[in-house]
């Protein structure tokens, strides 16, 4: 083994370490944020679909049948000849 003064000094690679950990920690964090964004967007989709379904049901609903009182009142009216 070489005596101490002849050993290569340890290289300064801190910048690469920092850059590496920015990706190693940053990417999973961004991924977790993406869940929240996607979740919010899906919830908006559900709200939109449900309101569209409600509108559709209102449009296709049959008019309400006349009540018994209305039917008897109509029956008492004289018919136009």
């Amino acid at each position, binding site marked *: 083994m070489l005596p101490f003064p002849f050993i290569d000094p*340890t*290289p*300064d*690679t*801190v910048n*690469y*370490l920092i*850059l*590496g*950990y920015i*990706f*190693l*920690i940053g*990417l*999973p964090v961004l*991924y*977790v944020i993406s*869940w929240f964004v*996607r*979740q919010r967007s*899906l*919830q908006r*989709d*559900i709200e939109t*679909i*449900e309101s*569209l*379904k409600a509108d*559709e049901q209102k449009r296709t609903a049959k008019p309400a049948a006349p009540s018994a009182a209305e039917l008897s009142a109509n029956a008492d009216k004289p018919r136009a000849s």
Partner: protein
Amino acid sequence: MEKPSTRLQILNIVSAVLILIAIGLVFFYAPEELVMGQVQRIFYFHVPSAWVGFLAFFVTVVAGIMYLRSGEPFWDRVGHSSVEVGLLFTISAGVAGSIWARPIWNTWWTWDPRLTTYTIMALIYVAYIMLRQGIEDPDRRARFAAVYGIVGFISVPITYFSIMWWRTIHPVVFGSASENAKGTFSMTPPMAVTFFFSLFAFTVLYFCFLANRLRLARLQDRVEKLKAELLAA
């Protein structure tokens, strides 16, 4: 969307604590490697990230087999979620490895067998996600994804064993290293403790991510069903 279950909340907290401890070990407990310097600390998260990728793709195989046997949409959701989580960790390990390589190999990238097979593996799973999106019918999509997930897994052992089958400059920390390898080192006990703890923490983190991603997949399925009902009405 319903609140996460108590078990999932506990898993989230445990994963976060384990990762924080792992970060502490990496920066304050593991000694500096004398030849590579500080950049060697990337190893403690790079290898566990790659391991999680392999594990996730294996879970996709299991989910694919289970789907083909049972036809349960749950297994399709597991397979899809696992690929997404696995791909995230695969990309993150690849990028970190490239950053480590710059001062050690004096290049960001080289067509080394390990790097090449790793990239092909990642692209196979990128294609899995892209092709899934191209199929409208949920049953066909699930069947296709199950078969693709099983066949695509062939790339994982090829990637893992590439450093033993071919001449490579990629370090082999476990097993015999090639004489061309640049960046190999022997682990001291504190390095080994840090490494194995990180491996454990990332494995727990994988299951935590998978469980959370499954919740999102359930919500996506609900939206798809509602859309189909609306179109059918």
